[in-house]
Structure formats: structure tokens, C-alpha cells
């Protein structure tokens, strides 16, 4: 009989011959494989290699590296196959040379700075406005009836349709850009909050009521923490919307000097410079991924607190 660790039952599995046994198969699983089992991993995650930082980093890195390697390989093979002329589908090396050239100019980083400043300002504004609207709409039934659906309606509007209004209200200022960004992102934030609030378990609401929570305290201590998961996913969507709106909105006002990412992207397209287009796709992807990593960190911290993830 095996003496150590959970392999004992697995050993017996063949003997029992009961293939419907839901348990035996589960226990025999080794920790690394359990990791792979995804959801089950939430429960079965091995605790032992905590602190072995190197291993942990490696484990979250190799799939990324592999994925990138595969993409590059497929790309290069497509290029070699000469399926399309090289000026339509440039090779990875061309693109990365271009990318290298682009990101080594200070001008590019100025553009990144301009764009990120706008993105963060706009997003923060959208979060504030979206949160307030979401809270109000979920709180007051008539308001919900009045503008609940309008929120999603606004969201489906292409940013470009807001340009005339943005120009009308804010002339050609930075505010016009922010306006477009906020209109793009705030509905997601509001919707995330509303849906989170709608799904706060009844029991918790009742507990809050018994504890005498009301008004701001209720939001601070009950509604917000309880709807945080949905709120965060609303923020994530809001970020995606705000970024997309920004890319369009930046074409509204072009400030000579530092060229924002949106303008550069458009320019690359206008020049039909496919290598440059791919460069900017990569730049935008990387920014998007970096931001997503931030959101995921917040999300994981939350899930750990809530006991949905083994720490």
C-alpha cells in the first residue's frame, strides 16, 4: 500500500473497476496536473511550492512565450509561403525592425505619454461619472425606467457619431476628446455596477438592513464590496471602450508636436504601410495587455479575499 500522499486511492482505482466513481479519479491527480484541471484547481491547488517564486513566474511565463513563438512561426511560414506579396504581409523581422525604430524615438514616447494621459484622465472621469450614474439608476426605480436602457443605447453609438456634438460643445479642445472617451466608457462602468448591485444576494441586503445601513454607509460597506467583482469587470470593459473611443477621438484634435498613438495609427493606415500598421497593432496590444494585467491583479486579490482562490 503506498504510504505517502494521495496516490493511494488512485492505485485502487483499477481494482475497483467502477468507472463512474467521481472521487477516485480526482484524488489520484498529481498537483501539477491538478493545476491544469482549471476550475478544480481552485480547490485542489497544491500549497507546497508557495514561495518558490522562480517556479511560479516560470509557470505563468512559458505559456505566453510559447504562444508568442507559435504566432511568430505561423506568421513567418505564411510569409515564406509567399501567399501575399511582402508589402501586404511583411515578415516579422521587418516589422520588428520598424518597431525598434519607432520605439527608440523620443517622439514616440511623447506620443505614448499624451495618449496615456488622455486615456487615464478620460477613464477616471468615466469611472466617476459611470459610478454615480450606476448607483443612482440602481437606486431609483423611475430613473431606471427612464434611462436604464438608454445607457446601453448610448454605448452602441460609434464614437464617430459623437464628434459633431463634441465639437459643438467643446470646440477643438482636449475636452472634446475626453467627452468622446467618457461617453464611450461610462456606460460600461455604470452597467457593471448596476448588474453587480442587482445580483447582490438578498441575504446580505437583509443583513445590511438589520445593521441599520443606509445611504452612503450602505454603499460604502455593503453594495460596493458586494458588487465589486461585477464592477471590476465593468471597469475592464469600460477601459476597452474608452481606449477604442480614444483612438478615434484623437483624430478630432491633432496637436502639433507630440503625435498621439491614435494619429500615428491612422497615419500608418493612410500610408498603407503594412509593416507600420502591424507595429502599432502590437503597441496597442501591449498597452491593452499591460492594463489587463493590472485589472487581473485586482481581480485575483479580490478573489483571494473572498476565498475563491487558494492563497
Amino acid at each position, binding site marked *: 500500500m503506498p504510504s505517502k500522499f494521495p496516490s493511494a486511492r488512485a492505485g485502487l482505482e483499477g481494482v475497483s473497476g467502477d468507472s463512474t466513481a467521481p472521487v477516485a479519479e480526482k484524488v489520484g491527480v498529481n498537483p501539477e496536473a491538478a493545476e491544469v484541471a482549471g476550475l478544480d484547481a481552485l480547490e485542489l491547488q497544491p500549497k507546497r511550492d508557495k514561495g518558490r517564486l522562480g517556479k511560479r513566474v516560470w509557470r505563468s511565463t512559458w505559456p505566453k512565450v510559447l504562444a508568442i513563438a507559435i504566432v511568430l512561426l505561423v506568421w513567418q511560414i505564411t510569409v515564406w509561403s509567399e501567399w501575399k506579396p511582402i508589402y501586404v504581409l511583411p515578415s516579422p523581422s521587418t516589422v520588428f525592425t520598424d518597431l525598434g525604430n519607432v520605439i527608440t524615438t523620443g517622439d514616440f514616447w511623447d506620443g505614448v505619454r499624451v495618449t496615456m494621459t488622455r486615456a487615464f484622465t478620460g477613464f477616471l472621469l468615466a469611472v466617476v461619472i459611470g459610478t454615480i450614474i450606476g448607483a443612482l439608476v440602481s437606486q431609483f426605480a423611475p430613473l431606471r425606467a427612464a434611462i436604464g436602457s438608454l445607457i446601453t443605447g448610448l454605448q452602441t453609438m460609434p464614437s464617430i457619431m459623437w464628434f459633431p456634438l463634441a465639437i459643438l460643445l467643446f470646440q477643438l479642445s482636449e475636452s472634446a476628446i475626453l467627452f468622446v472617451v467618457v461617453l464611450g466608457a461610462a456606460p460600461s462602468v455604470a452597467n457593471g455596477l448596476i448588474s453587480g448591485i442587482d445580483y447582490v444576494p438578498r441575504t446580505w441586503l437583509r*443583513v445590511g438592513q438589520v*445593521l*441599520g445601513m443606509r445611504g452612503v454607509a450602505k454603499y460604502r460597506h455593503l453594495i460596493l464590496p458586494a458588487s465589486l467583482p461585477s464592477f471590476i469587470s465593468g471597469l475592464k470593459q469600460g477601459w476597452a471602450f474608452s481606449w477604442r473611443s480614444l483612438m478615434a477621438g484623437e483624430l478630432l484634435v491633432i496637436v502639433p508636436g507630440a503625435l498621439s498613438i491614435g494619429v500615428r495609427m491612422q497615419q500608418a493606415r493612410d500610408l498603407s504601410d503594412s509593416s507600420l500598421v502591424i507595429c502599432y497593432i502590437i503597441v496597442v496590444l501591449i498597452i491593452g495587455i499591460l492594463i489587463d494585467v493590472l485589472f487581473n491583479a485586482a481581480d485575483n486579490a479580490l478573489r483571494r479575499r473572498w476565498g475563491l482562490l487558494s492563497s
Partner: protein
Amino acid sequence: MSLLETRDVRTDPLVRLENVSKTYGSGSNALLALDGVSLTVQKGEFVCLLGASGCGKSTLLSLVAGLDQISGGTLDIGGRKVSLMFQEAALFPWLSVRGNVELPLRLQGVSRPERRKRADELLDIVRLRGFGDKRPHELSGGMRQRVALARALAQNADILLMDEPFGALDAMTRDILHDELERIWREQRLTVLFVTHNVREAVRLGDRVILLSSRPGRVIEDYPITHERPRRIDSPEVSGQAGEITDRLRAEVARHAQ
């Protein structure tokens, strides 16, 4: 503490239900959970509620706590502060154990060090010293129930409603908490409405034990418990009266089962 002293305050009706009824749902789906319940609880009284599963005990507490609206009759608690310990622990997963206990204190605006001191006291009372920094999901069922008790006590309410608060505890831990609860009730002159399935527990703790009939819930019996405190749950008096009440309860459930 003499019986006379507790009697003193009993001339002051604090919770009054008159002919209260409660219907859930509507139309063909309607379910009459409580029907014509009349009940008066004096200030400082400890009243235990007994009844079959699903007879409307929790419903009654939620009506008194103002969580649900009554469908008929009159309910009056004179605007007192009510605290309710739910049947399920219902702790907030985003707060630590201490955070959960501190929450009512925060809402009362108690200062941070004061809060912390009080929460630790309460955790001591429910025998969970040292578990303050754990999260609710790291506790056993009985431990969670005790945290919920500590949270309810932290509320400093006039009326304490308790829904099977000791259902998930072993006999010994329960005995300890009976003593603690009795002490707090006496010291703070609380008014307690206590739901349980353990008849001996009811007799051990209550000034009165009220029996509810099965669906729809009605008050069918109101036993005053006059044994002198402190009582012991395994004392012959408690056992004796518990036996009597149990028989009555069995008869009621049997009647309903037919």
C-alpha cells in the same frame, strides 16, 4: 438576581403583534406563512419560539425586524433598535472575522481602537480569540455561527432576535454560550426573541416558551418558565418541562402530518 427584579420591567410591552398575518407570493402561488399571530413581549423579557420546520418562525423574526412587510394585523416595536441573528451566518466574505464583528461598531461611529477592543472582547465571548484575522471561508460552520452571534451582539440593540443561533454547536460550546448570553441579557437588560428546535435549550433560557402551530403559523401555547435562574440544561426541572413541551409539539406536528 432575583426573579422579582426581572419581573419589575415586565409591565412595559416592547414588542406587540396583534393578529399579524403574512402571505408570501400571490394568486395561486400564495402561501400563508403566518395567520393571526398575537404576541406581546415585555421589556427585558427572554422569549423562546418553538415550532415545526417551516412553520414560520424565521418569518416572524423578519417581520419584527422590519425586513418584510406584514400582510395584515398590527406590529409595533416602538421604534426600538433591533438586531437579528440570521439562521444562516451570512457573514460578508470581503471582511475578516474581526471586520465582520467590527462592522456594526463602525456604523455606530465607534473609534478604531475602541472598536478593536470591543470586537476582541466579543470574539472572546464566543470563544474565537485568535481567529480575528481569518476570513469567513476559513471557518467551520459552528465558528461562523459564533461570529454571527458576536456581530449581532456588537449592534447594541434593545431587541435581540435570534434564529437558531446555536444549531451548529456541540453541547459543551453551546452550554458556555448559554451562560454568556444569559449574562449579557441580564446585564444589558435586552429583550430577546429566540428561535430554536431544542426544547431544553428553550426551557433553559426563556422566561416564556411560545409554541407555533404548523403551516400557517399560529400561537398555540405560551408556557411561562418559572424555574429559578441560573438553570442547568441537564437539571431535572428543565428536562421535565422540556418533556412536557416536546409532547405537545409532537402532537402538533403529528396533527399537521395527517
